[in-house]
């Protein structure tokens, strides 16, 4: 058997892995997007707790960000994947099912990525809120805007504008972190490359391709982020 060349692997032909790798890349993007969304929701609550929550909420949010930024992400994935499986198995036993039920890897992965990025989102949103001028909020109050209107029209858009560069960084981290989800067996980009490497005996080619695809995704998203930053800072005078 002759080994396929580097570009044969990238083709859609019989030796080609292009279709499988594209499906893997799509799964990577899905995991990253779900994790990022979960993180953004947690981050919004976390920032709110730190800014205007009571003492208990503040301490809880502080503890959350300190712990999640101090422990490896891999541990969080293990906790959710194995812990979730153990929990589901014992729930299954209550309903008469016997044997082991495994927690869905996608869900465990997205949750783990979300929980770890939530700590970063919290800090990004908190910093961005602090950068909003007091005067703008005072002006909104003076205009007689209600609380919700003030949040919707003034605070949220301004905070988001300041948060955008930080949000872009968090997205890059999340994208790379999604590779760790491969240990749960979800066939995302890295797992697909492992499968390819195993069945062709060409690990270098496959991991190189995986690396290039990650690089492409992160480059495209950083260009998109730069566009978004430009779009949302229209009307800001510089210099």
């Amino acid at each position: 058997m002759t080994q396929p060349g580097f570009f044969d692997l990238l083709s859609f032909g019989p030796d080609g892995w292009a279709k499988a790798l594209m499906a893997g890349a799509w799964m990577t993007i899905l995991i990253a997007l779900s994790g990022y969304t979960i993180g953004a929701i947690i981050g919004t609550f976390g920032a709110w707790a730190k800014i205007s929550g009571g003492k208990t909420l503040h301490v809880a949010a502080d503890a959350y960000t300190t712990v999640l930024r101090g422990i490896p992400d891999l541990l969080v994935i293990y906790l959710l994947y194995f812990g979730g499986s153990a929990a589901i198995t014992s729930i299954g036993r209550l309903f008469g099912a016997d044997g082991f039920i495994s927690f869905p890897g996608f869900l465990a992965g997205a949750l783990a990525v979300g929980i770890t990025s939530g700590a970063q989102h919290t800090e990004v949103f908190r910093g961005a809120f602090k950068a909003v001028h007091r005067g703008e909020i005072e002006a909104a109050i003076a205009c007689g805007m209600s609380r919700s209107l003030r949040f919707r029209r003034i605070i949220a858009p301004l905070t988001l504008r300041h948060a955008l560069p930080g949000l872009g960084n968090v997205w890059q981290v999340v994208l790379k972190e999604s590779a760790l989800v491969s240990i749960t067996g979800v066939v995302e980009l890295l797992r697909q490359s492992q499968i390819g490497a195993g069945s062709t005996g060409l690990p270098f080619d496959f991991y190189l391709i995986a690396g290039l695809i990650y690089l492409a995704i992160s480059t495209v998203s950083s260009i998109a982020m730069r566009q978004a930053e430009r779009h949302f800072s229209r009307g800001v005078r510089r210099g």
Partner: protein
Amino acid sequence: MDWEFTQETFVSLVSALPLTLSLAATAIALGAILALALALARTSGILVLDWFARAYVFVFRGTPLLVQIFLIYYGLSQFPAVRHSIFWPVLRDAYWCAVMALSLNTAAYASEIIRGGLLSVPHGQVEAARACGMPRLMVFRRIVLPLAIRQALPGYGNEMISMIKATSLASIITIMEVTGVAARIISETYRAIEVFVVAGFIYLAINFLLTRLVQLVEFKLSPHLRQPENAAQMAIAGDAR
């Protein structure tokens, strides 16, 4: 939570701690040297070096560390030339592959931090040193580098914490450091929560100590920002009089 099980877990995880620390320390030390070289290449003004450093940082920051580890550990063995070379005993070893991947990775991030430090050195300081007749190397050694290190230290501390966390990925290529042992205990007992709490506590403790250490070094390196001790004593003496 089962107290006895927690204690047993703690003992087995702590016995894996030296491996985690040696991975992190070796990677940080090797990475720092490489990072300094990259930062100097980036600020040298020599086009080829500048572009090489840019490309290096772009590639290593744009791809997941796990892919880099796999590429070195599994990928390189694909080539017979590597398997027959004198480097094979090193490249076959999971520990050295992990150290290599971690060092190459941290160098990319750290070089940007050091570059920021180098750029922050005020031009007047360099000019003053030149005016005193210091040769280029001495200016770098006595003026630029100390000022840059002081400026880069807080950012560098964060990068070191990231490295401590990143050593956990070595467990995926069979290295039994803290996370590796934790994963083994979890998959044997399915008691994820207890093991997670103990392992998390160990990592938090290391990172807490590391943060304090960096703060201490920062304090030592910036005596000019504090009131001098004898001046403070003189002020007190003056009050007494």
